[in-house]
């Protein structure tokens, strides 16, 4: 009996883990990858957007007031830009090639990718379009509610 319960619990936890994995994968990751060429150091930070959006639900509105005030009345534009970015195919938007620096801004598989390669450092930034827009809209929404409360 105990053995069967153990198996059921294991299956249940595996199922939950799989669902969580799928949800994290679906929401995407913000990735910050910085390589300092002069010091030889590297910082790699992958942040699951699912956790960012969950954190926004937990953080008190007052804490986000300053950030959200900057986004006031921009939620419609964010939605419009997100729609346009989501609709357009994978493309390179900006490509700058200099003697010492290269900059690339592109859309790759639902993500915006920013690559900067200079003599001193290599920076790679990636964020999912839809999940990031969702987070921004959430912050803007907080501000609207917040201003109504006051």
């Amino acid at each position, binding site marked *: 009996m105990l053995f069967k319960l153990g198996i059921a619990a294991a299956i249940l936890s595996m199922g939950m883990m799989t669902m969580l994995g799928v949800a994290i994968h679906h929401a995407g990751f913000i990735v910050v990858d910085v390589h300092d060429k002069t010091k030889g150091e590297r910082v790699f930070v992958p942040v699951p957007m699912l956790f960012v959006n969950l954190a926004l639900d937990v953080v008190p509105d007052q804490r986000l007031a300053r950030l959200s005030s900057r986004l006031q009345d921009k939620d419609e534009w964010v939605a419009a830009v997100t729609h346009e970015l989501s609709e357009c*195919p994978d493309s390179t938007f900006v*490509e700058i090639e200099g003697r010492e620096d290269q900059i690339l801004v592109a859309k790759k598989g639902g993500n915006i990718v920013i690559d900067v390669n200079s003599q001193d450092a290599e920076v790679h930034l990636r964020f999912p379009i839809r999940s990031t827009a969702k987070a921004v809209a959430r912050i803007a929404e907080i501000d609207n509610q917040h201003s109504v409360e006051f």
Partner: protein
Amino acid sequence: MQIRRALFLFLSVCLLAGRLQAETKQWVHVHIEDPSKEEKVKVNIPISLVESLMPMIEEKSVEKGRIRLHEKDMSIKDLRKVWKELRSEGDNEFVSIENKDTNLRVFTKGNYLMVEPGEGSTTSIEMKIPLAVVDAMLSGEGEELNLTAAVRALKESGSGDIITVKDKDATVRVWIDESNKAR
């Protein structure tokens, strides 16, 4: 059976319409090359995205996609009056600039405001701007340029080269087409 056929036909039409819409999406391309500095800048952006971004541009001189120019530098009101006069005259050469390096002609031809280099000009500047874009840009009030309307007019004007500058130091090309990649 008929329902299945109708559903299949409906889905096919939707897919085709979606594909056509995706294919006809216009892109604005800006390419700048400066061989002396070994620099290349390539910008490829859907016009509809530029249109969406316009209201976001909020600097001191830009408000709601409209540029407010300093009255001392240039009066948009006067420019609007001059443009109205010139527009009513039809195809005409407005300005001719001649100095030791540059020789340029500014004129309207059909639906376009054109800038072309004259003979002996070392700098080759070519511009072909739809008149509707200039009209839209000057459709703001007072000392404002209506950039959002200009971008919208540009989107409706179709594909083609807008600006081509060939100088001894740099090459600049701005054009619109239906591809997300540079030609």
